[in-house]
């Protein structure tokens, strides 16, 4: 397994906090060991989830545009018969490839292919609502929502993990635009760069 490299590691200087505002926002790079897309072939959905239950109980089907969040791993429904498994554990990608039969689903390892910024804090929902043309009212897209939509002219996946915790995924070639958008958008209220972290939000 090649060593993972994270695309915005150099740009995000931990502890950096521009003076403006009250610092309602924390930005942090999320570094995951596993990002795998699973796309089932016709009639094979139950086979897929039986295989998943064998290696990581709790990775169950979630409704459209929602995710099951297990803390250090999550299953996100991203399309009909298409899911993302994201996890801290770098060995889970290989385990998924092993456990899911070739005739059940296409298993695509995207672990190197995404850049992720976590936007959290009391100002996070307001910042995100300015960025997406999707209603972030907690009744409609509260915690658990998985929203694929453009953010500042690049396509992104937004996983709302808590009321005020949003993980924004972009193709890794958009790591620069993702980082610059996040810092520009957060500048009016002030932000702090948090240490790079894994999926777990912490309580």
């Amino acid at each position, binding site marked *: 397994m090649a060593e993972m490299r994270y695309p915005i590691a150099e740009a995000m200087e931990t502890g950096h906090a521009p003076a403006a505002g009250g610092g309602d926002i924390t930005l942090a790079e999320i570094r995951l060991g596993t990002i795998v897309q699973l796309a089932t072939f016709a009639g094979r959905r139950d086979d897929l989830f039986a295989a998943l239950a064998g290696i990581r109980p709790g990775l169950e089907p979630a409704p459209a545009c929602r995710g099951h969040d297990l803390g250090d791993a999550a299953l996100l429904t991203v399309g009909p018969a298409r899911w993302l498994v994201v996890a801290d554990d770098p060995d889970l990608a290989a385990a998924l490839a092993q456990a899911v039969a070739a005739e059940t689903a296409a298993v695509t390892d995207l672990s190197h292919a995404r850049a992720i910024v976590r936007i959290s804090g009391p100002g996070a929902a307001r910042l995100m609502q300015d960025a997406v*043309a999707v209603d972030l009212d907690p009744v409609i897209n509260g915690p658990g929502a998985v929203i694929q939509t453009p953010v500042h002219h690049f396509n992104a996946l937004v996983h709302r993990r808590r009321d005020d915790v949003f993980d924004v995924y972009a193709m890794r070639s958009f790591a620069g635009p993702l980082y610059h958008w996040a810092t520009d958008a957060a500048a009016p209220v002030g932000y702090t760069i948090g240490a790079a972290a894994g999926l777990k939000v912490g309580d």
Partner: protein
Amino acid sequence: MLITCPHCGARDRAEFTYGGDASVPRPELSDLDQERWADYVYLRTNPRGTLREFWHHVAGCRIWFIAERDTVSHKISATQALDDDGSAER
């Protein structure tokens, strides 16, 4: 303008791309008649009123689906998912 993706629900029109008239039947792949293929590839009726069209939720879940759009008012009266063989799923 909002378009209702069968998977994601109502989303901004900017998330979608237009895929053309969905009512044009494709000839059998074994059909060697050049005129029928030319008609299929190039000829469109451009009706005034309701048209069944392919749309792609390219910035969202990336599925293709069918929308019934009024070509005068742009009102979309229905959207419908496709399954793999091109027939309606729901």
